[in-house]
C-alpha cells in the first residue's frame, strides 16, 4: 500500500488525511512542525531559502524516516520560489538517499492531463470517478468547516472571560470533524463546534481592536511557523481578521495562479503587477482593510521571501496614504517568541491609543 505524506499547514491535514485514506492509501500524517523538524530542514536546505521550504523539507525527512514512500505537494509556475521548491526538494532528498515518489499538483492551466494522472496514481483503492469526486467534495466540505470554526475562534478569543476557553471549544470542534467523514457528519460536527464556541462566556463590554493579517500563505496558515501570533493577538485583546484561508486561496489559484480580482483592483495604484506568491495580495488586502475601518495590519512573511519583500517596500506608502498602521514580521528559524510578543504588545497598545484619541476627537466634534 502507498504510504503518503504531505506538508503540514494549520489544520488542513485532517481533511487531506481522510481524503487520501478514502482513496486507499496509508497516510503518514505530517507532525506539527517543531524544533526537531525545523532543524532537519535547516540542516539540509539552502541557507537563504525561506522557512516554508525548510519546514516542509524537515517534515518530509521525518515522514520518509517513518516509512512514507510518496510525497504529495503543490507546484507552481513562478515567479515565487515556492513553485520550484518541490523540484528542488526532490533533488535534495534523492541526494540524501531517500527513495520515494513525488506527486506534484500544478495549477490546472499547465495541463488537465497531469491532474488526472496524479489522481490515478493516488487512487490506490481503484475508486470509481464518482466515488473520487465524492471524496474530494467531502474533503472540501471539511476544509470549509475547519475554516469556519477558525473564523469564529478569531471572533470569540479576544472577548472570552476565561483565558483559553475559546481555544478549548475550538479544539473540541476540530476533534469532532476529525472523527467523521460523511457529508451529514461534517455538517453536524461543524454546527456543534460553532455552538460550543458561541457558548463560551464572553465579556459583553469587550471592544477589541481589529487587526488584519496579510502575508505569505504558509506562515499565515501554520501557527507553528508564526509562533501562534493569532493566539497572542487574541489574548492581547485584538480581533484577528485573516486575509487568507485555504478555501479562498484554493478557489483563486487552482486554475490560474494569482486570482482574486477584488484584491488586485485594490492593489492597483500601488502594485499593478502579479509578482508571484502573495505580494500583490498583501498590498491589496491592506488597502481593503483600511477601507473596512480596521485598526491596523500585520504583514507575516518568511525571511528572504521575494514577493513579500516587494510588498514590504510598498506598504509604508499605503500606510501613510490611507492612515493605517502596518507592522511587518519576517520570520525565520531564529525568530524568538519573546521578541515577537513584545512587538505585538506595543503594536496593539498603539492601535488602542490611536482609536481612543480618534474617538475623543469625534466626541468633541459632536459637542
Amino acid at each position, binding site marked *: 500500500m502507498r504510504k503518503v505524506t504531505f506538508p503540514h499547514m494549520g489544520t488542513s491535514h485532517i481533511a487531506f488525511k481522510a481524503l487520501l485514506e478514502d482513496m486507499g492509501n496509508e497516510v503518514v500524517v505530517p507532525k506539527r512542525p517543531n524544533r526537531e523538524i525545523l532543524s532537519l530542514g535547516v540542516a539540509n536546505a*539552502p541557507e537563504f531559502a525561506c522557512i516554508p521550504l525548510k519546514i516542509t523539507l524537515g517534515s518530509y525527512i521525518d515522514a520518509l524516516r517513518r516509512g512514507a514512500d510518496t510525497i504529495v505537494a503543490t507546484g507552481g509556475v513562478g515567479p515565487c520560489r515556492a513553485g520550484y521548491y518541490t523540484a528542488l526538494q*526532490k533533488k535534495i532528498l534523492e541526494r540524501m538517499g531517500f527513495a520515494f515518489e513525488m506527486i506534484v499538483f500544478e495549477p490546472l492551466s499547465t495541463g488537465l492531463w497531469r491532474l488526472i494522472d496524479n489522481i490515478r496514481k493516488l487512487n490506490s483503492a481503484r475508486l470509481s470517478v464518482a466515488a473520487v469526486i465524492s471524496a474530494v467534495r467531502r474533503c472540501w466540505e471539511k476544509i470549509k468547516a475547519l475554516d469556519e470554526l477558525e473564523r469564529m475562534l478569531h471572533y470569540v478569543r479576544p472577548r472570552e472571560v476565561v483565558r483559553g476557553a475559546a481555544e478549548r471549544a475550538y479544539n473540541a470542534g476540530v476533534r469532532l470533524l476529525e472523527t467523521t467523514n460523511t457529508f451529514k457528519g461534517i455538517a453536524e460536527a461543524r454546527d456543534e463546534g460553532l455552538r460550543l464556541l458561541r457558548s463560551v462566556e464572553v465579556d459583553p463590554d469587550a471592544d477589541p481592536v481589529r487587526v488584519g493579517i496579510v502575508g505569505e500563505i504558509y506562515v499565515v496558515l501554520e501557527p507553528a511557523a508564526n509562533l501562534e501570533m493569532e493566539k497572542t493577538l487574541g489574548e492581547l485583546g485584538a480581533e484577528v481578521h485573516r486575509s487568507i484561508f485555504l478555501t479562498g486561496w484554493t478557489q483563486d489559484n487552482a486554475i490560474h495562479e494569482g486570482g482574486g480580482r477584488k484584491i488586485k483592483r485594490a492593489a492597483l495604484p500601488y502594485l499593478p503587477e502579479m509578482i508571484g506568491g502573495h505580494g500583490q495580495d498583501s498590498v491589496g488586502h491592506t488597502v481593503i482593510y483600511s477601507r473596512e475601518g480596521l485598526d491596523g495590519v500585520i504583514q507575516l512573511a518568511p525571511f528572504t*521571501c*521575494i514577493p513579500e519583500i516587494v510588498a514590504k*517596500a*510598498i506598504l509604508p506608502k499605503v500606510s501613510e496614504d490611507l492612515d493605517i498602521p502596518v507592522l511587518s514580521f519576517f520570520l525565520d528559524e531564529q525568530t524568538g517568541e519573546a521578541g515577537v510578543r513584545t512587538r505585538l504588545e506595543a503594536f496593539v497598545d498603539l492601535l488602542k491609543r490611536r482609536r481612543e484619541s480618534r474617538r475623543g476627537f469625534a466626541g468633541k466634534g459632536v459637542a
Partner: protein
Amino acid sequence: MTFTPIRIGIPRALFYYTFSTFWETFFREIGSEIVVSQPTTREVLDAGIREAVSEACIPIKVYHGHVRALAGTADFVFAPRLVSVDRRTVFCPKFLGLPDMVRSSMDGIPPLLSPRIDLRKNLLGLASACFEVGASLKVPSSKVMLAYARACAAHKRRTIPWPPGNADGGEERTAPGSPLKIAVLGYPYAVFDRYVSVDLIRKLWALGVDVVTIEMFTDAELNEESAQFSKGVFWHYSDRVVKAGYRCFHTRRVDGVIHVTAFGCGPDAVADRLLDIEASRTGFPFMPLLIDEHTGEGGLLTRVEAFVDMISRVKGGDGA
C-alpha cells in the same frame, strides 16, 4: 526658440548590462538625450542601502543607488517593468515590482518611465513598450516605429564589450590561451559590475586564468541541457546560469566553475543548490562565491586563489 532634448536617465544596474544597446539606441532615435549613471561605487551602494527596503538583495539596493545618482541630472528615469523577454521564463518578483518599490521608497527623484515588457502572450510586447514610452514623451508614432526598428537592429548587431557594461569596454582579455579556464557564472549585473563583483574577472586574469561567462554560451547550447530538468527553472537569468553550469559540468570544457551570487538573492537559493548538487554528482570543481556589502578584497582574493590553486594542481596531476 531653442529645443532642449529630454534627458532620460538610465541606471547602470540590473538589466542595463543585457539591454543597454536596445534602449540607448531607441532613446537616441526618438531625439532624447541619454544620461547613464556612473559605475557603482561605495557611495552608490550606501545610498541604495539607505533608501531600499532593508530585506532587498544587494543588486536591488545598488539599483536604488543608481536611481538616486540620476536625480537632478535627468528629467525622467527609465525603469521598465521587466516581466518576460521570451515565452518561457519570467524575471524575479523584485524585477516585476521594481518601479513600484522605487516609487514607494524614494522621494525627490525624477518621474519614472516604466513600460511593462512582457513577451509571454504578445510577441510585439517590446514594440508596445516602446509605444508606451513614446506616448508618455509625446513622440509621434512614426518616429517611435523607426526608433524601435533601429533599436532591434542595433541589439542584434551588438558586440558585447568585454567585460560588458563598462565604459572602458574595449579592453583586451589578458589571458586568452592560458592553460586554465574558469567559468564565472552569475547574473550579468553582479558579474560585470566591477564594484559588486569585487572585480573578480580582472583578479582571475591577473592570476593567469582565462574567463568564460554566460554570454559565451549560445542559446542552442544552453537549451541542450533542458532535458536534464524534470521542471525548468522559470526565472530568466537563473535559467541561463543553471544551464551554463550544467553545460560546463557535462562537457568539461572549462576547468572549474565559480558561481557569483549576491547577498539576499532569492532565486540563487535555488540556483546555487541545483549547481552544487550537480557539481558534486559529476565531481566537477565548483565554488559558490557569496558577495555582500562587506566583502573585502583580501578575503575574496584568498578564496579565489585557493580555488585556482586547487584546480591547477588537479590539472597538473592529470598531465603528469
